[in-house]
């Protein structure tokens, strides 16, 4: 076919005051919902404390939440036969009750005296911390994925993606914000979100030589992963260093790649492209390790006793498909606003295929993790899913997750035409993004809130605040650079791209 050498106009995204105003309205709506939700949460708690009956219910729930923690440790240390012998669903209730029997006296007795005061944190505060952490992990992922998207385009020497690479790059500008928030939120919320931060869990003997009643053998065994080189229960140096190194590394890679991409706009040479290709390859190696460990650190360690070897992949798959849907949605909205003339239905088709394929990939990972745990039915593993399948709102989110993140994108993006149309992508991409927000809700909240989890105005308000701030940062960054590289060596290939 004739490869026409097309002359293209450089394009600049203009971040109009009108768009900014809309985003600020979104932010204000979020703040209002947040404040309302927080007020409702606090005042409903006050009522609970008033009546004896409610107070009893509360303490009962606390016992249950401790019991759930000890289900895992009981079944390993004291071999709980109930769960393994009974194949039916009843076994779960059985082992829950069994564990509660064990845990109740401990809770009433020394457990509290020896330990900190984390069980006394009011529920509204835990809920607030939980939703902040959930949203920050979710949006941090979008930022990292933006950079990851750019890096794989260069490493794979992709020709089609010149018109969409800068959107991915703009997402990456959220990385420093996410990093600062993550570090700050850790110090604000760690005792309520991460069970392993409590010092009473570590050490068999107390300072006076008596037996430590709060000692948790399993968590103690994992201590070096958090506290190395310091002793368990002190300052989690290794954990914090990892967080700083990951965000620092991502931010440095982001800046170097961005700098070279923008330099290329000034000089017509392929040298920058080759340079970025090399940097991208190194970034991908760094990303492979860091994204996986980040998933264990920031999400999996919330359920400290539990572990899954699939978890790094699972969080990556969820982040990745959400990031792809976000990039696609921003491209679609830019096209609707008259930008990105070099992006046509062939490029949309590629983005649509990405969203379609990685929705299936996520489902594959989800199922791979679920099936093995379901089939093996090992008590310390199945508690994770039992928590999520038995208590509302986790239970309906658990099933909704599969419908919204697999069935809908699978059927809606199946045909070729659907992937090539702005109108269809405009519907499916928000579904994927919101669906995976729910996915992360179910990853974070049950471990923090136990059966007291709520999905209400507070959670929605926090999500809107994060979304508005994220978009203000990302669109602001996008408006400060050309929408595509006019000297990108792949520009002509991208324009002639045809599938």
């Amino acid at each position: 076919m004739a490869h026409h050498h097309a002359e293209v106009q450089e394009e600049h995204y203009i971040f109009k005051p009108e768009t900014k105003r809309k985003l600020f309205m979104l932010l204000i709506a979020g703040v209002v919902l947040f404040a309302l939700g927080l007020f409702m949460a606090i005042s409903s708690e006050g009522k609970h404390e008033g009546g004896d009956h409610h107070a009893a219910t509360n303490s009962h729930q606390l016992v249950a939440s401790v019991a759930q923690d000890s289900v895992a440790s009981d079944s390993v240390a004291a071999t709980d036969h109930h769960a393994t012998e009974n194949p039916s669903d009843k076994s779960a209730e059985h082992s829950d009750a069994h564990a509660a029997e064990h845990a109740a006296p401990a809770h009433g007795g020394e457990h509290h005296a020896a330990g900190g005061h984390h069980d006394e944190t009011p529920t509204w505060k835990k809920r607030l911390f939980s939703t902040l952490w959930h949203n920050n992990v979710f949006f941090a992922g979008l930022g990292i994925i933006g950079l990851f998207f750019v890096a794989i385009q260069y490493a794979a020497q992709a020709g089609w993606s010149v018109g969409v690479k800068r959107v991915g790059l703009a997402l990456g500008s959220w990385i420093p914000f996410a990093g600062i928030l993550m570090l700050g939120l850790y110090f604000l919320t760690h005792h309520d979100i991460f069970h392993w931060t409590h010092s009473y869990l570590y050490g068999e003997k107390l300072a006076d030589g008596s037996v430590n009643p709060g000692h948790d053998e399993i968590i103690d065994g994992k201590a070096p992963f958090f506290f190395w080189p310091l002793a368990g229960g002190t300052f989690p140096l290794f954990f914090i260093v990892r967080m700083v190194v990951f965000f620092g590394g991502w931010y440095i890679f982001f800046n170097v790649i961005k700098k070279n991409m923008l330099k290329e706009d000034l000089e017509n040479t392929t040298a920058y492209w080759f340079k970025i290709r090399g940097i991208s390859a190194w970034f991908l190696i760094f990303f492979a390790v860091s994204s996986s460990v980040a998933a264990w650190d920031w999400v999996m360690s919330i359920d400290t006793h539990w572990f899954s070897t699939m978890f790094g992949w699972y969080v990556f798959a969820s982040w990745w498909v959400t990031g792809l849907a976000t990039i696609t949605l921003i491209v679609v909205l830019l096209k609707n606003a008259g930008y990105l003339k070099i992006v046509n239905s062939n490029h949309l088709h590629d983005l649509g295929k990405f969203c379609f394929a990685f929705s299936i990939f996520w489902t594959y990972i989800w199922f791979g993790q679920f099936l093995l745990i379901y089939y093996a039915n090992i008590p310390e593993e199945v508690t994770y899913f039992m928590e999520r399948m038995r208590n509302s709102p986790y239970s309906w989110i658990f099933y909704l997750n599969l419908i919204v993140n697999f069935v809908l994108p699978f059927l809606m993006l199946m045909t070729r035409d659907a992937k090539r149309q702005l109108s269809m992508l405009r519907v499916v991409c928000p579904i994927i993004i919101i669906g995976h927000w729910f996915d992360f809700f179910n990853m974070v909240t049950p471990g923090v809130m136990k059966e007291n989890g709520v999905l209400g105005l507070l959670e929605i308000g926090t999500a809107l605040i994060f979304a508005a701030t994220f978009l203000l940062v990302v669109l602001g960054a996008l408006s400060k650079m050309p929408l595509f590289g006019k000297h990108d060596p792949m520009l002509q290939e991208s324009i002639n791209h045809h599938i």
Partner: protein
Amino acid sequence: MDADKNFLVGVFDDEDAVLKGIKKVRGAGLKIHDVFSPFPVHGIDDALGIKKSRLPIAAFLFGLTGTSLALTMQIWMLGYDWPMIIGGKNFVSLPPFIPVTFELTVLLAALGMVATFMIASNLKPYSWPRQFDVRSTDDKHVMAIDLDLNGKSKAEISQILKDAGASEVNEKNFE
């Protein structure tokens, strides 16, 4: 004279020539029987006005057949015909059925699609596709025009093909 037997075959030297040629030949009011190329040519489907393939519909239906076949088979076998306790699970429990269901869906969709494609494009066993010009498997693009469907004389059609850029025009008759 019957249709689908007597053809004029225009031979084009490269894909640019054949793409331009298609536009000119169609512009002159001729109906093109088919074009044969040694490699896929971008944009040739649009230029020829070929309707969208219905193969994906067949694939979807074959896949759906695989899904239902796999589920029916497993539910009947493990739930009713010969119930067995496996891993302490219910006789009919969905999650362990999913891998088999997935595999059968993919298998039937793939095999069904290949079979449909073979039959639809006359590549099924013991059917020999017609060769308009054997060089279309090497380096020439070949355009076949049915002599009996266009209401124009052989000389007129030949002239149109030459004007459209054909480097040679041959006659081809099938029994």
